[in-house]
Protein backbone atom coordinates (compact mmCIF):
# COMPACT_ATOMS: atom_id res chain seq x y z
CA UNK A 1 0.00 0.00 0.00
CA UNK A 2 2.71 2.48 1.03
CA UNK A 3 4.99 1.36 -1.83
CA UNK A 4 2.07 1.92 -4.19
CA UNK A 5 1.42 5.41 -2.76
CA UNK A 6 5.07 6.43 -3.18
CA UNK A 7 5.20 4.85 -6.64
CA UNK A 8 2.04 6.68 -7.69
CA UNK A 9 3.43 9.98 -6.49
CA UNK A 10 6.75 9.42 -8.25
CA UNK A 11 4.92 8.42 -11.41
CA UNK A 12 2.86 11.59 -11.15
CA UNK A 13 6.01 13.66 -10.67
CA UNK A 14 7.69 12.11 -13.72
CA UNK A 15 4.68 12.36 -16.01
CA UNK A 16 4.03 15.99 -15.03
CA UNK A 17 7.64 16.81 -15.81
CA UNK A 18 7.88 18.76 -19.06
CA UNK A 19 11.17 17.03 -19.85
CA UNK A 20 9.42 13.69 -20.15
CA UNK A 21 6.64 15.10 -22.31
CA UNK A 22 9.25 16.80 -24.47
CA UNK A 23 11.20 13.58 -24.88
CA UNK A 24 8.09 11.68 -25.98
CA UNK A 25 7.15 14.37 -28.49
CA UNK A 26 10.72 14.47 -29.77
CA UNK A 27 10.69 10.67 -30.18
CA UNK A 28 7.49 10.77 -32.22
CA UNK A 29 8.91 13.59 -34.35
CA UNK A 30 12.11 11.61 -34.90
CA UNK A 31 10.10 8.59 -36.08
CA UNK A 32 8.23 10.76 -38.54
CA UNK A 33 11.51 12.18 -39.81
CA UNK A 34 12.84 8.68 -40.52
CA UNK A 35 10.22 8.54 -43.27
CA UNK A 36 12.31 11.04 -45.19
CA UNK A 37 15.17 8.52 -45.22
CA UNK A 38 13.00 5.62 -46.39
CA UNK A 39 13.53 6.21 -50.14
CA UNK A 40 17.27 5.74 -49.54
CA UNK A 41 16.72 2.31 -48.02
CA UNK A 42 16.03 0.60 -51.38
CA UNK A 43 12.71 -0.92 -50.43
CA UNK A 44 13.73 -1.68 -46.86
CA UNK A 45 12.20 1.49 -45.47
CA UNK A 46 10.15 -0.31 -42.86
CA UNK A 47 13.34 -1.99 -41.54
CA UNK A 48 14.94 1.40 -41.18
CA UNK A 49 11.85 2.75 -39.44
CA UNK A 50 11.77 -0.15 -36.98
CA UNK A 51 15.51 -0.04 -36.28
CA UNK A 52 15.61 3.71 -35.75
CA UNK A 53 12.30 3.69 -33.86
CA UNK A 54 13.46 1.02 -31.40
CA UNK A 55 16.83 2.75 -31.01
CA UNK A 56 15.08 6.01 -30.22
CA UNK A 57 12.94 4.25 -27.57
CA UNK A 58 16.08 2.94 -25.91
CA UNK A 59 18.10 6.17 -26.20
CA UNK A 60 15.28 8.54 -25.27
CA UNK A 61 14.29 6.28 -22.39
CA UNK A 62 17.87 6.47 -21.20
CA UNK A 63 17.70 10.25 -21.52
CA UNK A 64 14.65 10.30 -19.25
CA UNK A 65 16.50 8.08 -16.78
CA UNK A 66 19.41 10.52 -16.75
CA UNK A 67 17.38 13.74 -16.66
CA UNK A 68 14.55 12.78 -14.34
CA UNK A 69 16.01 9.81 -12.51
CA UNK A 70 19.40 11.18 -11.49
CA UNK A 71 17.81 13.67 -9.12
CA UNK A 72 15.03 11.35 -8.02
CA UNK A 73 16.27 10.90 -4.43
CA UNK A 74 18.93 13.60 -4.14
CA UNK A 75 16.41 16.30 -5.01
CA UNK A 76 14.14 15.06 -2.23
CA UNK A 77 17.02 15.24 0.21
CA UNK A 78 18.14 18.64 -1.01
CA UNK A 79 14.63 20.13 -0.98
CA UNK A 80 13.87 18.32 2.29
CA UNK A 81 10.62 16.86 0.99
CA UNK A 82 12.01 13.55 2.23
CA UNK A 83 11.34 14.72 5.82
CA UNK A 84 7.62 14.49 5.16
CA UNK A 85 7.97 10.89 4.04
CA UNK A 86 10.55 9.25 6.26
CA UNK A 87 9.11 10.76 9.44
CA UNK A 88 6.09 8.55 8.78
CA UNK A 89 6.00 4.79 9.35
CA UNK A 90 7.94 4.04 6.19
CA UNK A 91 11.08 1.95 6.06
CA UNK A 92 13.83 3.32 3.89
CA UNK A 93 13.88 0.20 1.65
CA UNK A 94 10.14 0.71 1.10
CA UNK A 95 10.77 4.32 0.13
CA UNK A 96 13.48 3.37 -2.39
CA UNK A 97 11.34 0.59 -3.84
CA UNK A 98 8.43 3.00 -4.25
CA UNK A 99 10.60 5.59 -5.98
CA UNK A 100 12.02 2.91 -8.30
CA UNK A 101 8.61 1.47 -9.10
CA UNK A 102 7.14 4.90 -9.88
CA UNK A 103 10.02 5.94 -12.11
CA UNK A 104 10.07 2.55 -13.85
CA UNK A 105 6.32 2.86 -14.39
CA UNK A 106 6.77 6.24 -16.04
CA UNK A 107 9.47 4.79 -18.29
CA UNK A 108 7.20 1.90 -19.27
CA UNK A 109 4.60 4.46 -20.29
CA UNK A 110 7.23 6.35 -22.34
CA UNK A 111 8.37 3.12 -24.02
CA UNK A 112 4.79 1.96 -24.65
CA UNK A 113 3.74 5.36 -26.07
CA UNK A 114 6.69 5.49 -28.44
CA UNK A 115 6.19 1.81 -29.32
CA UNK A 116 2.51 2.44 -30.12
CA UNK A 117 3.48 5.45 -32.25
CA UNK A 118 6.00 3.32 -34.10
CA UNK A 119 3.46 0.59 -34.73
CA UNK A 120 0.90 3.14 -35.94
CA UNK A 121 3.46 4.53 -38.37
CA UNK A 122 4.23 1.03 -39.69
CA UNK A 123 0.54 0.23 -39.97
CA UNK A 124 0.00 3.36 -42.05
CA UNK A 125 2.69 2.10 -44.41
CA UNK A 126 1.10 -1.32 -44.61
CA UNK A 127 3.36 -3.23 -42.23
CA UNK A 128 0.95 -3.82 -39.37
CA UNK A 129 2.07 -7.46 -39.25
CA UNK A 130 5.24 -6.42 -37.40
CA UNK A 131 3.14 -5.89 -34.29
CA UNK A 132 4.19 -9.02 -32.31
CA UNK A 133 7.93 -8.55 -32.89
CA UNK A 134 7.59 -4.86 -32.12
CA UNK A 135 5.72 -5.61 -28.89
CA UNK A 136 8.46 -8.01 -27.80
CA UNK A 137 11.17 -5.47 -28.61
CA UNK A 138 9.37 -2.73 -26.68
CA UNK A 139 8.87 -5.11 -23.75
CA UNK A 140 12.62 -5.83 -23.66
CA UNK A 141 13.40 -2.11 -23.96
CA UNK A 142 11.11 -1.53 -20.98
CA UNK A 143 13.01 -4.17 -19.01
CA UNK A 144 16.31 -2.50 -19.93
CA UNK A 145 15.01 0.85 -18.70
CA UNK A 146 13.73 -0.78 -15.50
CA UNK A 147 17.21 -2.14 -14.79
CA UNK A 148 18.78 1.24 -15.49
CA UNK A 149 16.22 2.87 -13.19
CA UNK A 150 17.33 0.65 -10.32
CA UNK A 151 20.91 1.81 -10.90
CA UNK A 152 19.95 5.48 -11.06
CA UNK A 153 17.92 5.13 -7.85
CA UNK A 154 20.94 3.64 -6.09
CA UNK A 155 23.32 6.33 -7.34
CA UNK A 156 20.82 9.10 -6.66
CA UNK A 157 20.36 7.90 -3.08
CA UNK A 158 24.08 8.13 -2.42
CA UNK A 159 25.34 10.95 -4.57
CA UNK A 160 24.64 14.23 -6.33
CA UNK A 161 22.46 14.42 -9.47
CA UNK A 162 25.43 15.09 -11.77
CA UNK A 163 27.49 12.23 -10.38
CA UNK A 164 24.59 9.81 -10.37
CA UNK A 165 23.87 10.70 -14.02
CA UNK A 166 27.53 10.07 -14.88
CA UNK A 167 27.65 6.78 -12.98
CA UNK A 168 24.46 5.59 -14.65
CA UNK A 169 25.70 6.62 -18.08
CA UNK A 170 28.95 4.75 -17.38
CA UNK A 171 27.04 1.64 -16.32
CA UNK A 172 24.87 1.94 -19.47
CA UNK A 173 27.89 2.16 -21.79
CA UNK A 174 29.75 -0.67 -20.06
CA UNK A 175 26.54 -2.68 -19.96
CA UNK A 176 26.02 -2.32 -23.70
CA UNK A 177 29.53 -3.65 -24.28
CA UNK A 178 29.63 -6.17 -21.45
CA UNK A 179 30.03 -9.07 -23.95
CA UNK A 180 32.89 -7.32 -25.73
CA UNK A 181 34.43 -6.54 -22.36
CA UNK A 182 34.58 -10.24 -21.50
CA UNK A 183 36.23 -11.02 -24.83
CA UNK A 184 38.61 -8.11 -24.37
CA UNK A 185 39.64 -9.42 -20.92
CA UNK A 186 41.33 -12.50 -22.47
CA UNK A 187 44.00 -10.31 -24.03
CA UNK A 188 45.32 -9.33 -20.58
CA UNK A 189 47.31 -11.17 -17.90
CA UNK A 190 45.12 -13.20 -15.51
CA UNK A 191 44.99 -10.55 -12.74
CA UNK A 192 43.76 -7.74 -14.96
CA UNK A 193 41.57 -10.11 -16.96
CA UNK A 194 39.88 -11.21 -13.72
CA UNK A 195 39.23 -7.61 -12.72
CA UNK A 196 37.75 -6.77 -16.15
CA UNK A 197 35.54 -9.86 -15.96
CA UNK A 198 34.30 -8.81 -12.51
CA UNK A 199 33.35 -5.39 -13.92
CA UNK A 200 31.68 -7.04 -16.94
CA UNK A 201 29.64 -9.23 -14.59
CA UNK A 202 28.69 -6.38 -12.26
CA UNK A 203 27.38 -4.03 -14.92
CA UNK A 204 23.99 -5.01 -16.36
CA UNK A 205 24.09 -7.36 -19.31
CA UNK A 206 22.14 -5.03 -21.59
CA UNK A 207 22.55 -6.95 -24.88
CA UNK A 208 20.09 -9.48 -23.45
CA UNK A 209 17.40 -6.80 -23.88
CA UNK A 210 18.28 -5.99 -27.47
CA UNK A 211 16.27 -7.63 -30.27
CA UNK A 212 16.25 -4.70 -32.67
CA UNK A 213 17.74 -6.70 -35.54
CA UNK A 214 15.19 -9.48 -35.10
CA UNK A 215 12.30 -7.03 -34.92
CA UNK A 216 13.54 -5.16 -38.00
CA UNK A 217 13.39 -8.43 -39.90
CA UNK A 218 9.88 -9.07 -38.55
CA UNK A 219 11.02 -12.07 -36.50
CA UNK A 220 9.98 -12.78 -32.94
CA UNK A 221 12.16 -14.13 -30.18
CA UNK A 222 11.50 -17.22 -28.06
CA UNK A 223 9.47 -17.26 -24.89
CA UNK A 224 12.57 -18.67 -23.20
CA UNK A 225 14.57 -15.54 -24.09
CA UNK A 226 11.79 -13.31 -22.81
CA UNK A 227 11.59 -15.37 -19.59
CA UNK A 228 15.34 -15.28 -19.02
CA UNK A 229 15.47 -11.54 -19.71
CA UNK A 230 12.55 -10.93 -17.32
CA UNK A 231 14.13 -13.09 -14.60
CA UNK A 232 17.52 -11.44 -15.08
CA UNK A 233 15.98 -7.95 -14.84
CA UNK A 234 14.05 -8.89 -11.70
CA UNK A 235 17.08 -10.38 -9.96
CA UNK A 236 19.38 -7.54 -11.03
CA UNK A 237 16.93 -4.87 -9.84
CA UNK A 238 16.42 -6.69 -6.53
CA UNK A 239 20.17 -6.90 -5.93
CA UNK A 240 20.76 -3.24 -6.78
CA UNK A 241 17.85 -2.08 -4.62
CA UNK A 242 19.06 -4.21 -1.68
CA UNK A 243 22.50 -2.65 -2.03
CA UNK A 244 20.97 0.84 -2.25
CA UNK A 245 18.77 0.18 0.80
CA UNK A 246 21.73 -1.06 2.85
CA UNK A 247 23.75 2.07 2.05
CA UNK A 248 20.76 4.39 2.47
CA UNK A 249 19.73 2.94 5.82
CA UNK A 250 22.38 4.72 7.87
CA UNK A 251 22.22 8.03 6.02
CA UNK A 252 21.39 11.19 7.98
CA UNK A 253 19.36 13.89 6.27
CA UNK A 254 20.78 17.34 6.86
Amino acid at each position, binding site marked *: *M*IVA*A*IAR*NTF*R*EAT*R*DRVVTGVVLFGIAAMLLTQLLSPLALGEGHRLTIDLGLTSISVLGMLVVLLAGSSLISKEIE*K*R*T*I*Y*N*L*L*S*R*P*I*GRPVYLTGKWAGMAGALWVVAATLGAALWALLALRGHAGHGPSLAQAVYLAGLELTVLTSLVVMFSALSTPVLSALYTLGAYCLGQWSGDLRGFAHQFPPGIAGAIEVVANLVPNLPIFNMRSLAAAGDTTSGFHLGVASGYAAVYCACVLCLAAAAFE*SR*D*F*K
Partner: protein
Amino acid sequence: MRPAQNGLAGNTSIVPDKKWPVAGVGALQMLPDAGLAISTRDLTKVYRNPWTLQVVRGLEGLDLDVRRGEVLGYLGPNGAGKTTTLKLLTGLHKPTRGTAWLLGVPIHETASRRRIGFLPEQPYFYDYLNGIEYLEFAGCLSGLSGGDAHRQARHWLGRAGLGERPRLVLRKYSKGMLQRLGLAAALLHDPELLILDEPMSGLDPFGRRDVRELIQEQKERGVTVLFSSHILPDVEILCDRVAILLQGRLTRVATVGELVQGSRQRIEIRCTGAGTLEVPANLDGVVECRQRSHETVLTLSAEQRLGEVLEWLLRSRIQIRTVTPNRVTLEELFMATAEGAGSRSEAPSPARAGEPAERRTA
Protein backbone atom coordinates in the same frame (compact mmCIF):
# COMPACT_ATOMS: atom_id res chain seq x y z
CA MET B 1 16.72 0.75 33.38
CA ARG B 2 13.47 2.63 33.35
CA PRO B 3 13.01 6.28 32.55
CA ALA B 4 12.32 8.54 35.47
CA GLN B 5 8.82 9.55 36.44
CA ASN B 6 9.47 13.11 37.39
CA GLY B 7 10.62 14.24 34.00
CA LEU B 8 13.65 16.07 35.33
CA ALA B 9 16.69 16.50 33.21
CA GLY B 10 20.06 14.99 33.80
CA ASN B 11 20.81 11.87 35.79
CA THR B 12 17.39 11.39 37.26
CA SER B 13 16.76 8.61 39.72
CA ILE B 14 15.55 5.50 38.04
CA VAL B 15 13.20 3.21 39.87
CA PRO B 16 13.43 -0.44 38.88
CA ASP B 17 9.82 -1.18 38.10
CA LYS B 18 8.52 -2.95 35.01
CA LYS B 19 11.50 -4.24 33.09
CA TRP B 20 10.96 -5.75 29.73
CA PRO B 21 14.02 -6.40 27.59
CA VAL B 22 13.70 -5.05 24.09
CA ALA B 23 14.61 -7.65 21.52
CA GLY B 24 17.56 -6.80 19.37
CA VAL B 25 18.74 -3.65 21.10
CA GLY B 26 20.73 -5.08 23.93
CA ALA B 27 19.80 -6.37 27.34
CA LEU B 28 20.24 -3.00 29.06
CA GLN B 29 17.53 -1.25 27.13
CA MET B 30 14.12 -1.63 28.71
CA LEU B 31 10.71 -0.49 27.69
CA PRO B 32 9.70 2.84 29.19
CA ASP B 33 6.79 3.50 31.48
CA ALA B 34 3.44 3.28 29.72
CA GLY B 35 2.57 6.79 30.88
CA LEU B 36 5.36 8.33 28.86
CA ALA B 37 4.86 9.52 25.33
CA ILE B 38 8.54 10.25 24.75
CA SER B 39 11.45 8.86 26.64
CA THR B 40 15.10 9.28 25.75
CA ARG B 41 18.10 7.75 27.43
CA ASP B 42 21.64 8.96 26.79
CA LEU B 43 20.55 10.02 23.33
CA THR B 44 23.67 11.30 21.63
CA LYS B 45 24.49 12.47 18.15
CA VAL B 46 28.00 13.12 16.96
CA TYR B 47 28.62 14.41 13.45
CA ARG B 48 31.88 13.53 11.79
CA ASN B 49 33.02 15.32 8.66
CA PRO B 50 34.26 12.50 6.39
CA TRP B 51 36.90 14.73 4.77
CA THR B 52 38.35 16.67 7.68
CA LEU B 53 37.40 14.06 10.34
CA GLN B 54 36.30 17.00 12.47
CA VAL B 55 33.86 15.92 15.15
CA VAL B 56 30.89 18.06 16.16
CA ARG B 57 28.69 17.05 19.06
CA GLY B 58 25.10 17.65 18.07
CA LEU B 59 23.41 16.23 21.14
CA GLU B 60 25.00 14.95 24.30
CA GLY B 61 23.43 12.29 26.52
CA LEU B 62 19.84 13.51 26.43
CA ASP B 63 17.64 12.04 29.17
CA LEU B 64 14.15 13.41 28.75
CA ASP B 65 10.69 12.16 29.57
CA VAL B 66 7.47 13.63 28.22
CA ARG B 67 4.28 12.42 29.80
CA ARG B 68 1.23 11.52 27.76
CA GLY B 69 -1.10 14.45 27.22
CA GLU B 70 1.59 16.97 28.07
CA VAL B 71 2.71 19.95 25.98
CA LEU B 72 6.45 20.39 26.24
CA GLY B 73 8.23 23.40 24.80
CA TYR B 74 11.72 22.66 23.60
CA LEU B 75 13.84 25.77 23.81
CA GLY B 76 17.36 26.65 22.90
CA PRO B 77 19.33 29.10 20.83
CA ASN B 78 20.24 28.36 17.22
CA GLY B 79 22.49 25.33 17.04
CA ALA B 80 21.59 24.05 20.51
CA GLY B 81 20.48 20.68 19.16
CA LYS B 82 16.71 21.07 19.10
CA THR B 83 16.26 20.10 15.47
CA THR B 84 18.81 17.32 15.90
CA THR B 85 16.72 15.87 18.73
CA LEU B 86 13.53 16.04 16.70
CA LYS B 87 15.25 14.44 13.71
CA LEU B 88 16.56 11.64 15.90
CA LEU B 89 13.09 11.03 17.30
CA THR B 90 11.51 10.94 13.86
CA GLY B 91 14.09 8.64 12.29
CA LEU B 92 15.68 11.22 10.01
CA HIS B 93 18.97 10.90 11.88
CA LYS B 94 20.45 7.82 13.48
CA PRO B 95 21.71 8.20 17.05
CA THR B 96 25.41 7.72 17.69
CA ARG B 97 24.61 6.42 21.18
CA GLY B 98 21.62 5.87 23.39
CA THR B 99 18.03 5.31 22.43
CA ALA B 100 14.54 6.68 22.75
CA TRP B 101 10.97 5.48 22.74
CA LEU B 102 7.91 7.09 21.20
CA LEU B 103 4.69 5.88 22.80
CA GLY B 104 6.59 2.89 24.10
CA VAL B 105 8.13 1.83 20.80
CA PRO B 106 11.91 2.20 20.30
CA ILE B 107 12.77 4.75 17.63
CA HIS B 108 14.79 2.31 15.56
CA GLU B 109 11.53 0.55 14.73
CA THR B 110 9.47 1.99 11.89
CA ALA B 111 6.33 1.36 13.96
CA SER B 112 7.43 4.07 16.42
CA ARG B 113 6.33 6.65 13.84
CA ARG B 114 2.89 5.15 13.29
CA ARG B 115 1.05 7.32 15.79
CA ILE B 116 3.04 10.51 15.52
CA GLY B 117 2.59 13.64 13.47
CA PHE B 118 5.68 15.63 12.55
CA LEU B 119 6.03 19.12 11.16
CA PRO B 120 9.59 19.89 10.08
CA GLU B 121 11.06 23.36 10.29
CA GLN B 122 10.20 25.35 7.14
CA PRO B 123 8.45 22.42 5.48
CA TYR B 124 8.90 21.84 1.76
CA PHE B 125 6.42 20.01 -0.39
CA TYR B 126 6.08 18.64 -3.90
CA ASP B 127 5.24 21.74 -5.89
CA TYR B 128 3.65 19.74 -8.71
CA LEU B 129 0.88 18.52 -6.38
CA ASN B 130 -2.14 20.46 -5.22
CA GLY B 131 -3.28 20.69 -1.62
CA ILE B 132 -5.77 17.86 -1.72
CA GLU B 133 -3.38 15.54 -3.58
CA TYR B 134 -0.63 16.21 -1.06
CA LEU B 135 -2.82 15.53 1.95
CA GLU B 136 -4.21 12.34 0.39
CA PHE B 137 -0.65 11.21 -0.24
CA ALA B 138 0.32 12.04 3.36
CA GLY B 139 -2.71 10.12 4.63
CA CYS B 140 -1.81 7.03 2.61
CA LEU B 141 1.76 7.18 3.92
CA SER B 142 0.42 7.24 7.46
CA GLY B 143 -1.53 4.07 6.85
CA LEU B 144 -4.99 5.44 6.00
CA SER B 145 -6.98 3.68 3.31
CA GLY B 146 -7.62 5.56 0.07
CA GLY B 147 -11.17 6.53 1.07
CA ASP B 148 -10.17 7.65 4.57
CA ALA B 149 -7.21 9.57 3.20
CA HIS B 150 -9.47 11.45 0.79
CA ARG B 151 -12.04 12.22 3.49
CA GLN B 152 -9.44 13.36 5.99
CA ALA B 153 -7.61 15.39 3.35
CA ARG B 154 -10.77 17.35 2.55
CA HIS B 155 -11.53 17.83 6.24
CA TRP B 156 -8.05 19.05 7.20
CA LEU B 157 -7.62 21.24 4.16
CA GLY B 158 -10.73 23.07 5.34
CA ARG B 159 -9.50 23.18 8.94
CA ALA B 160 -6.23 24.69 7.77
CA GLY B 161 -8.15 27.42 5.99
CA LEU B 162 -7.09 26.18 2.57
CA GLY B 163 -10.30 24.50 1.54
CA GLU B 164 -11.53 27.21 -0.80
CA ARG B 165 -9.03 26.33 -3.51
CA PRO B 166 -8.25 22.62 -3.05
CA ARG B 167 -6.82 22.28 -6.58
CA LEU B 168 -4.33 25.14 -6.25
CA VAL B 169 -0.84 23.75 -6.89
CA LEU B 170 1.58 24.05 -4.01
CA ARG B 171 4.09 26.17 -5.90
CA LYS B 172 1.52 28.96 -5.70
CA TYR B 173 1.13 28.67 -1.91
CA SER B 174 2.52 31.39 0.36
CA LYS B 175 4.87 30.49 3.21
CA GLY B 176 2.09 30.70 5.76
CA MET B 177 -0.16 28.49 3.64
CA LEU B 178 2.60 25.89 3.36
CA GLN B 179 3.09 25.94 7.12
CA ARG B 180 -0.63 25.37 7.67
CA LEU B 181 -0.64 22.60 5.07
CA GLY B 182 2.26 20.96 6.91
CA LEU B 183 0.30 21.10 10.14
CA ALA B 184 -2.73 19.60 8.43
CA ALA B 185 -0.52 16.79 7.08
CA ALA B 186 0.83 16.17 10.58
CA LEU B 187 -2.67 15.96 12.04
CA LEU B 188 -4.81 14.21 9.46
CA HIS B 189 -4.24 10.68 10.77
CA ASP B 190 -5.20 11.66 14.35
CA PRO B 191 -1.77 11.14 15.92
CA GLU B 192 -1.29 10.61 19.63
CA LEU B 193 1.97 12.51 19.62
CA LEU B 194 2.77 15.70 17.75
CA ILE B 195 6.35 16.76 17.15
CA LEU B 196 6.55 20.26 15.75
CA ASP B 197 9.74 22.03 14.78
CA GLU B 198 9.22 25.79 14.91
CA PRO B 199 5.49 25.59 14.04
CA MET B 200 4.99 29.35 14.29
CA SER B 201 7.96 30.44 12.22
CA GLY B 202 7.05 32.46 9.17
CA LEU B 203 3.47 33.02 10.27
CA ASP B 204 1.75 36.36 10.66
CA PRO B 205 -0.04 37.11 13.98
CA PHE B 206 -3.27 35.57 12.68
CA GLY B 207 -1.47 32.44 11.56
CA ARG B 208 0.28 32.20 14.93
CA ARG B 209 -3.04 32.49 16.70
CA ASP B 210 -4.51 29.73 14.51
CA VAL B 211 -1.58 27.42 15.23
CA ARG B 212 -1.79 28.18 18.95
CA GLU B 213 -5.48 27.29 18.91
CA LEU B 214 -4.79 24.12 16.99
CA ILE B 215 -2.16 23.02 19.52
CA GLN B 216 -4.47 23.94 22.38
CA GLU B 217 -7.23 21.89 20.79
CA GLN B 218 -4.94 18.90 20.38
CA LYS B 219 -3.92 19.23 24.00
CA GLU B 220 -7.56 19.15 25.04
CA ARG B 221 -7.97 15.96 23.00
CA GLY B 222 -5.18 14.41 25.05
CA VAL B 223 -2.54 14.55 22.35
CA THR B 224 1.03 14.92 23.57
CA VAL B 225 2.85 17.81 21.93
CA LEU B 226 6.58 18.42 21.77
CA PHE B 227 7.45 21.59 19.97
CA SER B 228 10.49 23.71 19.55
CA SER B 229 10.11 27.42 19.19
CA HIS B 230 11.89 30.71 19.39
CA ILE B 231 8.65 32.56 20.09
CA LEU B 232 8.70 32.40 23.85
CA PRO B 233 5.35 34.09 24.58
CA ASP B 234 3.69 31.27 22.63
CA VAL B 235 5.62 28.69 24.62
CA GLU B 236 4.58 30.40 27.82
CA ILE B 237 0.93 30.28 26.84
CA LEU B 238 0.84 26.71 25.58
CA CYS B 239 3.30 24.62 27.50
CA ASP B 240 2.91 22.57 30.62
CA ARG B 241 6.67 22.37 30.88
CA VAL B 242 9.67 23.67 29.02
CA ALA B 243 13.01 22.01 28.39
CA ILE B 244 16.01 24.22 27.77
CA LEU B 245 18.81 22.89 25.63
CA LEU B 246 22.17 24.60 25.37
CA GLN B 247 25.15 23.47 23.35
CA GLY B 248 23.71 20.02 22.87
CA ARG B 249 22.97 19.46 26.55
CA LEU B 250 19.69 19.57 28.39
CA THR B 251 20.15 22.13 31.12
CA ARG B 252 16.71 22.41 32.65
CA VAL B 253 13.23 20.92 32.50
CA ALA B 254 10.51 22.59 34.55
CA THR B 255 7.09 24.15 34.38
CA VAL B 256 6.98 27.83 33.45
CA GLY B 257 5.75 28.50 36.99
CA GLU B 258 8.70 26.66 38.51
CA LEU B 259 11.08 28.60 36.33
CA VAL B 260 9.58 31.92 37.22
CA GLN B 261 9.15 31.07 40.90
CA GLY B 262 12.14 32.17 42.89
CA SER B 263 13.13 34.69 40.31
CA ARG B 264 13.02 38.26 41.53
CA GLN B 265 9.89 40.21 40.75
CA ARG B 266 10.19 43.77 39.55
CA ILE B 267 7.72 46.55 40.24
CA GLU B 268 7.12 49.36 37.85
CA ILE B 269 5.88 52.72 39.15
CA ARG B 270 4.63 55.28 36.67
CA CYS B 271 4.32 58.85 37.87
CA THR B 272 4.12 62.43 36.66
CA GLY B 273 5.69 65.62 37.91
CA ALA B 274 9.03 63.96 38.62
CA GLY B 275 11.09 65.71 35.96
CA THR B 276 13.92 66.70 38.26
CA LEU B 277 13.58 63.82 40.69
CA GLU B 278 16.80 62.54 42.21
CA VAL B 279 16.94 59.08 43.78
CA PRO B 280 18.07 59.34 47.40
CA ALA B 281 21.28 57.61 48.38
CA ASN B 282 19.60 54.93 50.50
CA LEU B 283 17.59 53.78 47.44
CA ASP B 284 20.45 53.98 44.97
CA GLY B 285 20.83 50.66 43.17
CA VAL B 286 17.28 49.66 44.02
CA VAL B 287 15.39 52.08 41.83
CA GLU B 288 16.05 52.64 38.16
CA CYS B 289 14.61 55.89 36.84
CA ARG B 290 13.68 56.53 33.18
CA GLN B 291 12.17 59.70 31.77
CA ARG B 292 9.56 59.38 29.04
CA SER B 293 7.68 62.10 27.18
CA HIS B 294 4.84 62.57 29.68
CA GLU B 295 5.87 60.45 32.59
CA THR B 296 8.66 59.03 34.68
CA VAL B 297 9.00 55.26 35.02
CA LEU B 298 10.67 53.91 38.12
CA THR B 299 11.62 50.26 38.15
CA LEU B 300 12.06 48.73 41.56
CA SER B 301 14.16 45.59 41.72
CA ALA B 302 13.56 44.75 45.39
CA GLU B 303 9.91 44.14 46.21
CA GLN B 304 10.40 44.56 49.97
CA ARG B 305 11.50 48.21 49.51
CA LEU B 306 8.22 49.22 47.84
CA GLY B 307 6.82 50.95 50.92
CA GLU B 308 10.00 52.95 51.35
CA VAL B 309 9.95 54.08 47.69
CA LEU B 310 6.26 55.03 47.77
CA GLU B 311 6.81 57.00 50.96
CA TRP B 312 9.68 58.89 49.30
CA LEU B 313 7.56 59.65 46.22
CA LEU B 314 4.59 60.89 48.28
CA ARG B 315 6.91 62.96 50.44
CA SER B 316 8.32 64.54 47.26
CA ARG B 317 4.75 65.34 46.13
CA ILE B 318 5.01 63.21 43.03
CA GLN B 319 1.76 62.07 41.49
CA ILE B 320 1.75 58.27 41.30
CA ARG B 321 -0.34 56.95 38.39
CA THR B 322 0.22 53.20 38.49
CA VAL B 323 2.12 50.60 40.49
CA THR B 324 2.51 47.37 38.47
CA PRO B 325 4.26 44.19 39.59
CA ASN B 326 6.12 42.79 36.55
CA ARG B 327 6.75 39.08 36.56
CA VAL B 328 9.98 37.97 34.97
CA THR B 329 9.13 36.61 31.52
CA LEU B 330 10.17 33.25 30.21
CA GLU B 331 12.19 35.10 27.63
CA GLU B 332 14.24 36.85 30.31
CA LEU B 333 14.74 33.61 32.19
CA PHE B 334 15.74 31.85 29.03
CA MET B 335 18.22 34.56 28.16
CA ALA B 336 19.65 34.45 31.66
CA THR B 337 20.03 30.66 31.50
CA ALA B 338 21.65 30.84 28.08
CA GLU B 339 24.05 33.59 29.13
CA GLY B 340 24.90 31.72 32.34
CA ALA B 341 25.69 28.56 30.42
CA GLY B 342 27.66 30.54 27.86
CA SER B 343 29.84 32.09 30.52
CA ARG B 344 30.39 28.70 32.17
CA SER B 345 31.35 26.95 28.94
CA GLU B 346 35.00 26.63 28.14
CA ALA B 347 36.62 26.93 24.72
CA PRO B 348 34.00 27.16 21.99
CA SER B 349 33.48 24.12 19.81
CA PRO B 350 34.67 24.32 16.19
CA ALA B 351 31.09 24.64 15.06
CA ARG B 352 27.98 25.28 17.05
CA ALA B 353 26.79 22.22 18.80
CA GLY B 354 23.54 20.84 17.54
CA GLU B 355 24.17 20.92 13.86
CA PRO B 356 26.77 19.61 11.49
CA ALA B 357 29.29 22.10 10.23
CA GLU B 358 27.50 22.37 6.88
CA ARG B 359 24.20 23.54 8.34
CA ARG B 360 23.46 25.42 11.52
CA THR B 361 19.84 26.32 11.51
CA ALA B 362 18.43 24.35 14.44
